[in-house]
């Protein structure tokens, strides 16, 4: 142990000593100033009560109670502070183990995740730490049901020993197995699996009393279901009875619920059958007879989470709702919600229950009023007015144009006064926003859809216009004097600023925050840009790249499928107008609009990047953003035409070409360019095709794509991703070596990289290819062994530099080890140095395009790469660093020097030292100072985009995934601004000292001179 640690320490120290000179790192004072991070918990799933947001009240220190909003998305369990909307804690689950549901009980929250609920987690609800993690079955043994959340449940039992606080958990998994897990130690006490012959029964719900545990299931019979109850001994897991209850359930688990009447020992099972509500008391022997609630014509029973109070809601055929309560053994209708029948004046109501601090129940009803254009909430308080009940309500100005439609809400009520009921609700909307309303005021909004960004683009801001004073020709003398006086008003301020700037060292600095009062204008160094980001929830955002604030947001309209509903899948985003065009920058978002009616349309949204305004003028003012349907069907590929007239070329599935914007000028420009255009796309799984553009014979404005080449990859490989090189200026065509010879970069503009995934499940092979897109020839190919059938190759191509990362499991060889690899490849022209083929200007038809050689180095890292991108600067002169996102939820900037494929294996010679090459070391250092995201957690990054700033030294980066992160990096240091180590005080002191020295020395010298004259 000791040897190891000392080894570690030495290697670490050695590394630090080596790298200290080459590392650029952040200062602590710059954290949060030059960068920002936004934490998300993911869009809450509202398809079931087990994942939608809910209030949880728990004991904090002492006797205080505190509440959090618990919410589960696909892969994140999060707790949000209801006061300010900040994330109190969260837990991110593995991609293979999505959350099925969460179950809360005071100070613990339990989750089931994975297929059939294979893993149980128990969290401390205050801190979010894991108390227990228990795997209940292997994922492979999980049962898949039509609905993923079917057949799993958790319920909390009584503590095993009195005085011990941790409650035992009863867990139902796979629809057939019941486990009892000790609350204190997390051990499995017993487990019971339904016998094979009853596998037609899917158990769905658990209900526990002191002695007995009831598992309620549904047995599939002809065209309907029958309720099935299994009673187990809570102590031993022994089967007591199992029985079908004569019933006829139509809609599965929506049609039954459990009640725990406060006055009775036995829980009661309530279900709806042919318009009649029926119920049966559950006893260990299951001997009770079912009884019916009088009245028929009911359509639905709703569980509002008040089963402990014996309350539930029954909906009639006309939509009107009645609150029922179980008293002893009789059901009592305690409240009819007035005007709750379906109407054209308001939307269908959503009901929710709540329990306050004292344990008193409340029931809320919310609907959208078309007349008021506002949401309305009614809260029914059963215990007020001597038990007669009271309804209080208010309307709240929910903005559907900004946030879509309310999907779900959770209610939290306090009753501070006898007749006063204060309520707050947390609503989840179709656009993925989570909002807290305190009565009619919105307290905070979390735009959780930002965790689902599909495409994003940096857009440069325009310069601030110099303020023009009115210099008109006819200005008289008095006018001019007055104008000068008014202009001079700013002079004292300017003077004060000048003096201050002179006296103190407050310069525009790279590490300074950007002032935000200037509006949407470019700052001095161009660090402030707009990131336009389109999410999977039909909303597009404009984000300030300097602080991550949302500048504008628009809800995307569904256009042709507005009635049927649909899903907007953002595919690509293009900046069609930039600041250099002299207009407000504009972006075009290309989407595939998938209607729920089965139609697919290609829709583009044309947006002003500064304001979010519709530039195509499709949408009425103040309404949601409507797009333009370009053609029906899915687009197979889209490009931005590389010309002055920024036109988007879209290809439909029949290889016809569509232009957007479709104007006469654009068609003309395109027709001129068309003969020289070549592009490639992937059609079937393992084939890549190259195309040429052909003008229609009869219709000159119709173009189509004509296949010129095909590249078939091996049958067991499927194209995973196609990486096109980052568009940026290339500063130099070659690299001058230490011996004054030059290596010429291979800069074929058609070059792109392809990564493949393995089709075969075992011992498959994945590959990385560099393909010349004009001819389909493979320039570089590397095969990577797959890890148990999967390989996750991440690659980035910039100029002539390809970097890819993967996991290598093979350690059979002598000097092999398992681990993550990062491979760096550089392609150069010709056979060696000074061999120039001018690849960047070479005709695609030239046979010299294959005249290349390359350098390659592989590095080992302990950082699994989830996304990588090269930095991009204004003129491309600055070294390019690789920005990588790791599974440690961090963003790193790996210096180019470390990844240089020409790093020598021997000690560098003088010439190599001149090139700043350092000796090859197979291990990439895990230096924390390379982590640009420092203390921030940037989880599940899917993509990193980079953009140049006005300063050549600086590149802006934006990483998105579950979290968002923005920062700026300077791969070669800030060489174009005053260095931060520049010390004004030192300069002033030195000059002062010199002045002083002169003042002292001058009389001495004068005296000496005089003496010399005197004595000569």
């Amino acid at each position, binding site marked *: 142990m000791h040897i190891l640690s000392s080894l570690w320490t030495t290697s670490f120290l050695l590394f630090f000593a080596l790298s200290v000179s080459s590392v650029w790192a952040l200062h602590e004072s710059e954290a949060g100033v030059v960068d920002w991070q936004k934490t998300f918990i993911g869009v809450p799933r509202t398809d079931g009560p087990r994942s939608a947001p809910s209030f949880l009240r728990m004991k904090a220190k002492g006797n205080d109670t505190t509440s959090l909003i618990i919410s589960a998305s696909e892969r994140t369990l999060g707790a949000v502070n209801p006061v300010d909307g900040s994330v109190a804690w969260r837990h991110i689950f593995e991609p293979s183990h999505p959350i099925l549901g969460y179950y809360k009980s005071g100070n613990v929250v339990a989750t089931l995740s994975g297929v059939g609920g294979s893993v149980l987690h128990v969290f401390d609800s205050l801190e979010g730490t894991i108390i227990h993690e228990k795997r209940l079955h292997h994922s492979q043994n999980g049962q898949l049901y039509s609905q993923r959340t079917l057949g799993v449940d958790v319920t909390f039992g009584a503590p095993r020993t009195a005085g011990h606080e941790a409650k035992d958990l009863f867990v139902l998994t796979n629809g057939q197995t019941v486990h009892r897990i000790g609350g204190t130690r997390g051990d499995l006490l017993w487990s019971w699996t339904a016998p094979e012959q009853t596998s037609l029964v899917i158990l769905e719900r658990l209900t526990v009393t002191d002695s007995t545990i009831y598992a309620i299931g549904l047995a599939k019979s002809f065209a309907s279901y029958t309720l099935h109850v299994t009673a187990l001994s809570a102590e031993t897991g022994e089967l007591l009875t199992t029985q079908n209850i004569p019933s006829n359930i139509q809609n599965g688990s929506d049609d039954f619920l459990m009640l725990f009447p406060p006055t009775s020992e036995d829980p009661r099972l309530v279900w709806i059958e042919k318009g009649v509500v029926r119920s049966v008391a559950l006893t260990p022997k299951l001997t009770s007879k079912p009884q019916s609630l009088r009245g028929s014509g009911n359509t639905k029973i709703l569980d509002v989470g008040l089963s402990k109070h014996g309350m539930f809601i029954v909906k009639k055929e006309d939509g009107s709702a009645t609150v029922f309560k179980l008293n002893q053994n009789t059901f009592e209708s305690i409240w009819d919600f007035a005007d709750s029948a379906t109407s054209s004046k308001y939307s269908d109501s959503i009901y929710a229950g709540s329990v306050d601090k004292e344990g008193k129940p409340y029931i809320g009803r919310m609907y959208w009023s078309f007349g008021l254009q506002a949401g309305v909430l009614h809260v029914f308080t059963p215990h007020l007015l001597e038990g007669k009940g009271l309804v209080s309500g208010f309307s709240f100005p929910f903005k559907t144009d900004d946030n879509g439609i309310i999907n779900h809400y959770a209610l939290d009520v306090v009753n501070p006064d006898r007749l006063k009921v204060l309520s707050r609700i947390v609503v989840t909307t179709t656009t993925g926003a989570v909002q807290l309303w305190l009565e009619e005021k919105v307290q905070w909004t979390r735009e959780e859809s930002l965790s689902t960004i599909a495409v994003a683009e940096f857009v440069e801001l325009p310069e601030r216009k110099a303020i023009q004073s009115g210099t008109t020709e006819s200005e008289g003398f008095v006018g001019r004097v007055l104008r000068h006086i008014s202009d001079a008003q700013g002079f004292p301020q300017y003077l004060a600023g000048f003096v201050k700037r002179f006296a103190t060292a407050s310069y525009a600095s790279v590490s300074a925050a950007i002032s935000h009062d200037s509006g949407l204008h470019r700052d001095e160094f161009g660090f402030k840009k707009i990131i336009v980001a389109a999410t999977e929830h039909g909303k597009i955002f404009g984000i300030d790249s300097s602080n991550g604030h949302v500048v504008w947001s628009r809800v995307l309209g569904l256009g042709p499928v507005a009635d049927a509903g649909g899903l907007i899948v953002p595919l690509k985003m293009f900046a069609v107008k930039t600041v250099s065009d002299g207009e407000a920058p504009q972006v075009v978002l290309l989407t595939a609009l998938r209607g729920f009616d089965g139609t697919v349309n290609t829709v583009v949204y044309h947006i002003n990047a500064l304001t979010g305004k519709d530039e195509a003028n499709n949408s009425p003012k103040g309404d949601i953003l409507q797009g333009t349907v370009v053609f029906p069907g899915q687009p197979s590929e889209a490009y931005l035409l590389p010309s002055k007239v920024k036109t988007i070329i879209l290809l439909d599935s029949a290889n016809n070409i569509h232009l957007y914007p479709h104007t006469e000028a654009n068609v003309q420009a395109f027709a001129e360019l068309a003969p020289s255009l070549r592009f490639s796309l992937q059609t079937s799984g393992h084939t890549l095709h190259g195309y040429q553009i052909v003008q229609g014979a009869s219709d000159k404005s119709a173009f189509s794509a004509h296949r010129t080449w095909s590249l078939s990859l091996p049958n067991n490989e499927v194209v995973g991703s196609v990486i096109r090189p980052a568009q940026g200026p290339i500063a130099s065509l070659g690299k001058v070596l230490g011996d004054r010879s030059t290596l010429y970069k291979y800069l074929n503009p058609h070059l792109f990289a392809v990564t493949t995934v393995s089709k075969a499940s075992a011992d498959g092979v994945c590959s990385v290819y560099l393909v010349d897109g004009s001819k389909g020839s493979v320039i570089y190919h590397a095969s990577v062994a797959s890890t148990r059938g999967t390989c996750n190759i991440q690659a980035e191509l910039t100029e002539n530099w390809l970097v890819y990362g993967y996991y290598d499991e093979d*350690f059979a060889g002598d000097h092999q080890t398992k681990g993550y690899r990062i491979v760096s490849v550089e392609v150069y022209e010709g056979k060696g140095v000074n061999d120039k083929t001018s690849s960047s200007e070479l005709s695609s038809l030239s046979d010299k395009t294959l005249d290349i050689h390359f350098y390659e180095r592989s590095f080992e890292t302990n950082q699994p790469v989830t996304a990588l991108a090269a930095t991009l600067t204004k003129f491309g002169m600055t070294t390019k660093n690789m920005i990588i996102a790791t599974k440690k939820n961090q963003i790193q900037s790996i210096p180019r020097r470390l990844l240089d494929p020409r790093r020598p294996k021997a000690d560098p010679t003088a010439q190599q030292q001149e090139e700043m090459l350092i000796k090859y070391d197979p291990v990439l250092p895990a230096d924390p100072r390379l982590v640009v995201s*420092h203390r921030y957690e940037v989880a599940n990054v899917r993509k990193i985009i980079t953009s140049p700033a006005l300063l050549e030294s600086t590149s802006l980066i934006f990483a998105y995934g579950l979290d968002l992160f923005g920062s700026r990096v300077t791969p070669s240091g800030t060489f174009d601004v005053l260095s931060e180590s520049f010390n004004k005080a030192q300069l002033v002191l030195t000059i002062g000292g010199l002045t002083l020295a002169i003042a002292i020395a001058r009389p001495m010298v004068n005296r000496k001179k005089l003496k010399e004259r005197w004595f000569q």
Partner: protein
Amino acid sequence: MSPFLFLLLLGLSVFSNALDLKGAIVWNQLCPDAKTLGQAKAILDDGSNYYASITRDGSFVIPDVPKGTYVLNIVARNYLFDQYRIDVVDTLSAPEARPYLPGTPLSSTANSHVTIAHPLKVYPRFKNEYFVPKQSFNVMGMLQNPMIMMMGAVGVMVVAMPYMMKNLDPEQLKEVQQSQARMVNMQSSITSGDLSGIRSMFTEGSDNVGSSSATPSTPVKNRGKKKR
């Protein structure tokens, strides 16, 4: 009895090719508790199949690890842990764990005699330091700058030189004057670009006094006169 035996055998056959790998993080000053550690997990290899979360008490259980050789790593954002080579030989005996240094061949660890008892105890080794301290201005630092020190030395010399000269022995003084004259001569020949002059100076060396004194520089001469 026999069905029971059968069940037992069945159970054995199901679990015979895998075991649970147990371990715990030992809290220390670097990382005192699970809340400080944050969300963390223990992974084998790339963590795609075998992994476990670190629970509140630091423990973890990676279930059903089949026979094979693995690298155990603790993935935590702000902390660095030791890595281990884990060999699951058979399910009846505990897995073998050996310290493993990243970047070294995995095979080199196989013969290591340092084995670690199962359940593993894992220690946080480093807390990541993401920042470099900012260079702040200090007067001492500035004064320690070689340039500043040289300037100071020159200043002192300017003031002190005449007094030193005064106290020097006449013989020594002459020597100093000569060497100074040679220096000046060399400087002037460098500025005039006459390299042969320097070469001749080096070749002639110290023995040829006459040639060097043939071109004495005036300021030195003046100073010398003045002192007499």
